[in-house]
């Protein structure tokens, strides 16, 4: 297979003969490099080979510390932690839409009854290849318009899968159609084939709705058939319109209910034809906004007890900015979290202690430490946050066990305090992600000295939340206390304080009622009202003091705690680089700063001066920067030649790479050939990098620059 295809390529392509050194594999479109080693022993030998790496770094570096045993521990820990996070995220996203799903389900049942009320077809009619003639009213296609309120459709793919699952669990027959099925190439035939494949669970070549009708009547169970079209904006309008019109004609035979996902309510009007719109009998449902979903995920994964994995302030700020200003999708945020998690496990050897972090008690940590002790001493791991920077020896090991227990305790307290603060900030629409970035700030924490009265900067989210507590009206205040009680229930000491506040509020309330009989004169009432306000304000102030106490005592950012490296990921630069590469900038930087990357002593000696010893393409790209929109090929070549073969009068003192040879006519010709060869290869390489556009026939002497500025 591969060889025949390659033969075609070889036959058709070459502009020049192929160098003999190139192996056949390079010219095959596809080849098998090797097949999997059969036994586990082979795996061990692979690991041994991989571990032969230079070990000149002080700190344990990624890749160096992982032998089979260690790598397995870390991978197991990653899988454990990430599967927990992933499950939590899925559950959160499912729960957040559960109300909308239930609403959709009830509407489907109502619509199904409505369809049944005017359609009763016999088996013969149902399997006829053309629809039954009916009145126009019964051609209405019940359509649920699910408004995602999100321009980025990628976040809603999972939502519609969950919806399909939910409806299936309620007994509906469900099929999901994506925008790919509604392409102009496929036409309605592609949609029907997809429906048949999903409902009949087998590939059917004929795109015939009567097959579906026969299938439905053969089932005879009288359940609705739901077709979900999940990205209306990306569907081909004419194909979808035809599909809707066709479904509306078949609706008496197959009780199809359509669910369409769209970002806003006006999208169907923009995409569908008038005739198709006329067939729809639509009902709107609204999903939660991406920000609401984000806050729910943050709460469940990074604030409340989930896996024990946490992130530093810089990482949190980067992820927030990436979400709000750059990508805007939850999917990117989740991917960033997964990359952060993987990087944490790959770079931090002791991160394997995170496995079961949220469940373990002291004894279990001790067992794990005993298990890991050999490995720990072998690699001489050090924990930078431990004050004495002591190596994890036997004594340090005991310290490590107690530190893990302490970390867990601190995380629980921090989580409670943050949730209380978030509840207080909800009135000002403060997002949890913003609050998280602020409470994780180690500088802010350091600025909160024990003597200082203030626990927050003016205008910060924290101060807004505290002010909210002070200003909260009575009715909302008691709700806030109730929510606090729910969050702090696991910490008896704090729970007691919340109970005190509740008691204080209830006592004050009862007292006020006693003091204010219903038949009191008006002047006295206004006086009493002021008293009531004052008393109520006092309770609010007490609550504000309580929340400040929580901030000061419990909200220590994780990265300020000794041994936090085990649970907290901090390397924001590594995350940035892995999440979204920047080839446009980096490839140019590679070219313009090749000597820095290569650590080449001969080229780095003279900064900003082009030397013949530099990489040819680097020289050429640097020279191209002197040109404008277009590069004159002749000038470019001459300047390149001048760099490689400077004249004696030239400003470059460095000898040319060719100047060792005597300047005979033959060697000059050789030099010219070599320079032209180098120039040609440089142009080709810049063309491959997409930094140059080839000359047009109209302008054969010029090349076009593509990238301007880094």
């Amino acid at each position, binding site marked *: 297979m591969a060889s025949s295809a390659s033969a075609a390529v070889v036959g058709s*392509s070459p502009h020049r003969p192929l160098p003999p050194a190139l192996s056949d594999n390079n010219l095959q479109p596809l080849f098998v490099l090797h097949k999997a080693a059969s036994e586990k022993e082979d795996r061990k030998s692979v690991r041994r080979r991989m571990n032969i790496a230079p070990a000149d770094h002080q700190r344990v570096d990624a890749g160096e510390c992982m032998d089979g045993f260690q790598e397995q521990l870390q991978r197991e820990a990653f899988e454990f932690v990430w599967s927990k996070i992933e499950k939590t995220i899925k559950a959160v996203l499912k729960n957040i839409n559960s109300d909308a799903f239930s609403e959709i389900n009830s509407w489907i049942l109502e619509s199904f009854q409505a369809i049944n009320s005017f359609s009763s077809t016999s088996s013969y009619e149902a399997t006829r290849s053309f629809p039954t003639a009916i009145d126009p009213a019964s051609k209405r296609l019940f359509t649920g318009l699910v408004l995602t309120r999100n321009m980025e459709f990628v976040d809603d793919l999972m939502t519609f899968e969950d919806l399909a699952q939910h409806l299936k669990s309620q007994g509906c027959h469900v099929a999901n159609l994506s925008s790919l099925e509604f392409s102009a190439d496929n036409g309605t035939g592609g949609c029907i084939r997809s429906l048949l494949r999903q409902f009949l669970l087998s590939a059917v070549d004929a795109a015939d709705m009567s097959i579906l009708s026969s299938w439905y009547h053969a089932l005879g169970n009288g359940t609705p058939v739901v077709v979900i079209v999940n990205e209306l904006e990306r569907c081909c309008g004419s194909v979808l319109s035809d599909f809707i019109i066709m479904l509306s004609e078949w609706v008496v035979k197959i009780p199809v209910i359509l669910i369409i996902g769209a970002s806003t309510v006006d999208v169907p009007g923009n995409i569908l034809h008038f005739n198709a719109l006329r067939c729809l009998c639509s009902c709107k449902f609204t999903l939660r906004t991406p920000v609401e979903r984000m806050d729910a995920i943050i709460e469940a994964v990074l604030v409340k007890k989930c896996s024990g994995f946490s992130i530093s302030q810089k990482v949190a700020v980067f992820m927030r900015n990436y979400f709000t200003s750059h990508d805007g999708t939850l999917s990117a945020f989740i991917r960033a979290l997964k990359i952060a998690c993987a990087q944490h496990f790959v770079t931090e050897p002791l991160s394997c202690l995170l496995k079961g972090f949220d469940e373990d008690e002291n004894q279990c940590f001790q067992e794990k430490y005993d298990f890991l002790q050999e490995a720990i001493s072998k690699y001489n791991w050090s924990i930078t946050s431990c004050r004495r920077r002591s190596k994890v020896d036997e004594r340090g090991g005991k310290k490590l066990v107690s530190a893990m227990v302490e970390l867990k305790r601190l995380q629980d307290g921090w989580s409670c305090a943050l949730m209380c603060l978030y509840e207080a900030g909800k009135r000002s629409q403060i997002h949890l992600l913003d609050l998280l970035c602020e409470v994780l700030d180690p500088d802010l924490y350091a600025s909160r000295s024990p003597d200082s009265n203030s626990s927050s900067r003016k205008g910060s989210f924290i101060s807004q939340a505290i002010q909210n507590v002070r200003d909260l009206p009575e009715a909302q205040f008691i709700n806030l206390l109730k929510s606090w009680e729910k969050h702090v229930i696991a910490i008896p000491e704090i729970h007691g304080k919340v109970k005190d506040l509740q008691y204080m509020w209830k006592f004050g309330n009862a007292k006020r009622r006693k003091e204010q009989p219903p038949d009191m004169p008006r002047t006295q009432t206004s006086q009493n009202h002021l008293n009531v306000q004052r008393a109520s304000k006092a309770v609010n102030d007490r609550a504000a003091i309580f929340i400040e106490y929580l901030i000061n005592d419990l909200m220590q950012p994780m990265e300020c705690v000794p041994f936090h490296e085990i649970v907290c990921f901090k390397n924001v630069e590594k995350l940035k680089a*892995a999440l979204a590469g920047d080839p446009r900038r980096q490839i140019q930087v590679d070219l313009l700063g090749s000597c820095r*990357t290569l650590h080449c002593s001969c080229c780095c000696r003279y900064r900003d001066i082009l030397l013949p010893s530099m990489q040819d393409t680097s020289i050429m790209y640097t020279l191209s920067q002197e040109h404008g929109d277009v590069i004159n090929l002749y000038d470019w070549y001459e300047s390149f030649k001048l760099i490689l073969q400077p004249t004696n009068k030239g400003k470059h003192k460095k000898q040319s790479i060719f100047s060792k040879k005597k300047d005979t006519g033959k060697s000059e010709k050789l030099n010219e050939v070599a320079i032209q060869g180098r120039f*040609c290869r440089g142009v080709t390489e810049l063309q491959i990098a997409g930094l140059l556009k*080839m000359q047009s026939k109209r302008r054969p002497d010029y090349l076009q620059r593509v990238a301007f*500025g880094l």
Partner: protein
Amino acid sequence: MEIDDVDEEEVGFSRNYFLAKESGSSSSKKSGRKVSDIQVVDEQELIAAVANIEPKHEKEIAALKDSYKSSYSEWVFLLRCGFGLLFYGFGSKKALIEDFASTALSEYTVVVVNGYLQSINVKQVVVTVAELLLEFLKSRKKSPKANLPNLQQPFSSRSMEDLFSFLDGSWMEGNDCFVCVVIHNIDGPGLRDSDTQRCLAQLAACSNVRIIASIDHVNSPLLWDKKMVHTQFNWYWLHTPTYEPYKIEGMFFPLILAHGNTTQSAKTATIVLQSLTPNAQSVFRVLAEYQMSHPDEEGMLVSSLYATCRERFLVSSQVTLNSHLTEFKDHELVKIKRHPDGEDCLHIPLAKEALEKLLSEIN
């Protein structure tokens, strides 16, 4: 989507700003010199020179590549975590990736797709990956054969949906069962269209497949939408410049000095003309002579050419002339331009010197 099309639009936006900026800081070069002024050597010599370019900084490049070796185990870890690895940075990454795959991924089956080639059949890639996965599953004694798909129909005759569902199936316990697909230049000319990229994204999303790919073009990320990036390819970006020459990847690019210049075009035209009939050569000579004697004109009118050729008994009818002209046009020996009068005129797209050389050679 064509990357170059995007370039056009993008350049339009940013070009003016940066050019203005550049003109403020340094004097931009403007020159009317022609490429034909370069004394280009013979094409064969040039090709030989390109093939024998003495490498620079071999030691430093080897050290740079060695430095990546310490990351191999980390990359394997990331693959096992479910990420796709995307290598970028200047220089050919072919050797680096294949070395990584041979050294660190020997416990997995590795398929290599050479995306820099023009013709790649993506269905064939998916079929091959499916066949290799099946072979792997069969070789593992623990995997219960009853769970394997019905093998009556070969993979090559199955639909893509079937293939993807097989590749995404849970055939073994744990998530350490996958085939690695190395794609050199996933942004290569043969893989650049959106259907192919969508297909590769679907392949990458399968639980039993991991993609290790490289890109070289600065605008490659434009090939993917957010769904592909975040939920299917699940890229882990690795900046790994190697500064290795693009020997194989650049093999199919024409050499800039070997094509489009006077010597080359005249030579090509000579070869074409020599294969034509003497009468056709004479017709071409009439046109060339006219063009040389009227350098300021757009070209020779078709009617004038017909008249002259008829006078010299080179053609007997318009049909004969048209057949010669079709031959010339097919080999890009002549171009048709619109004369200000509205009539078509013929023009040989060669410089005067090249034309002279050509005439002397066919004589």
